[in-house]
């Protein structure tokens, strides 16, 4: 199970990479493994400003549809459009080419509420 120590995590199995005031977000290795083959990633909230825990998109595996939750409040400033044609990148490289959105943070203090790699590891019992 790959849980990079430098990233932050949520209980919804998303990872967050903070650079300056921008958070890059994807789903964890554990999440992609549980979902199986990802066949569709839908994000229609580009340029929208959403509160923490609001739904920003949907990830679909062969048999399941799962909501994607905003890990931190802010504006969605980028969507990884390459996932429209190659959603399988979420399976093959969840922390790299499988990133989903970038969020410009409006409440940076929320970062403190995210899980560390150690916390997340404990959450999934890895």
């Amino acid at each position, binding site marked *: 199970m790959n849980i990079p120590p430098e990233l932050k995590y949520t209980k919804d199995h998303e990872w967050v990479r903070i650079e300056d005031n921008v958070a890059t977000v994807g789903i964890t290795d554990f999440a992609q493994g549980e979902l*199986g*083959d990802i*066949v*569709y990633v*839908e994000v*229609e909230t580009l340029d929208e400003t959403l509160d923490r825990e609001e739904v920003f998109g*949907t990830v*679909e595996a*062969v*048999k399941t*549809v799962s909501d994607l939750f905003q890990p931190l409040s802010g504006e969605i400033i980028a969507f990884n459009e390459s996932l*429209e044609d190659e959603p*399988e990148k979420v*399976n093959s490289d969840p922390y790299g080419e499988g990133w989903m959105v970038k969020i410009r943070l409006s409440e940076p203090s929320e970062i403190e509420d995210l899980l560390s790699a150690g916390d997340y590891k404990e959450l999934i019992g890895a």
Partner: protein
Amino acid sequence: MKNTALTETHKALGAKIVPFAGYNMPVSYDGVNLEHETVRKGVGVFDVSHMGEFLIEGPKALELIQKVSSNDASKLTIGKAQYSCLPNETGGIVDDLIIYRIKEETYLLVVNASNIEKDWAHISKYNETLGADLRNISDDYSLLAIQGPKAVAAMQSLTSVDLSQIKFYNFVVADFAGIDYVIISATGYTGSGGFEVYCKNNEVQQIWEKVLEAGEGFGIKPIGLAARDTLRLEMGYCLYGNDIDETTSPIEAGLGWITKFNKDFVNAENLAKEKERGPERKLVGFQLEDRGIPRQGYDIVDGQGRKIGSVTSGTMSPSLGKGIGLGYVPLIFSETGSKLHIQIRKNAVPATVVRLPFYKSQ
């Protein structure tokens, strides 16, 4: 939750196991898309031992089968199988099934796992006055489906019969993988050819191992239920509980071809009337014209956003790379080429009614 005789074997292979129809079943091993492609282009093996098996024997066997099933079982000669359904008394379907004529007065009925008890009660009710010998052998028998264009070549070394000579919906009782009497049936739920093999529970481990061994050079893989579903849906095959149920008639489900009115059967009179006047709605296959995946229960809407039906099965077709689905729509929307919309969350995604199957095998 019941196990099949192979559940531990699947776990050892790293399968993801899920409860399905009362059984712990392998849903996938290596990933659904890879498994799907393996069956479309090579050969794969499924453990589908959850399926139910009833034996009906004796001088009244055919009469009972003719009464409860919609297809004409009198057409079955020994060694032939037939797709059929059990109509209920109120216009719907109790189950769909395959009927095998094993001997002169011996028939095997293969039913859906989730319906075993219901079907048993239904058939038993009609057997009260007939008294055919009816046995539920579901817990004693296993079923492997060996499917794909390379199935014949991959499995030939396991049997003395010429597998290439078994025609579609025919079967033989023969030696297979070192077991003397096994039903080898040229049937399946994938549209890619191959066999289904019925054996006793205590024989299935040996057969499973020999099948994987014989298929090794052909790239055989174990295939889970998730790929079974995408494979059947690409063919437009109905799944009981999704596309057909107690409220859908065989006529509107496009199963008129297995509903034969040259004989009497449960609710035949009403179904004949429905066929004559035409059903009000029809089960159609549709393909999305835009990105998205239709899912069971999503609304089918017209150009004005009015609901005209529901999706009964839907998926991202691994072979076509498009969203495909089945659903019931009013007759005026049922012609090939008709424009529909599928309500996917906030969007009404355009879709077109297409002729089935979605996927045409080479």
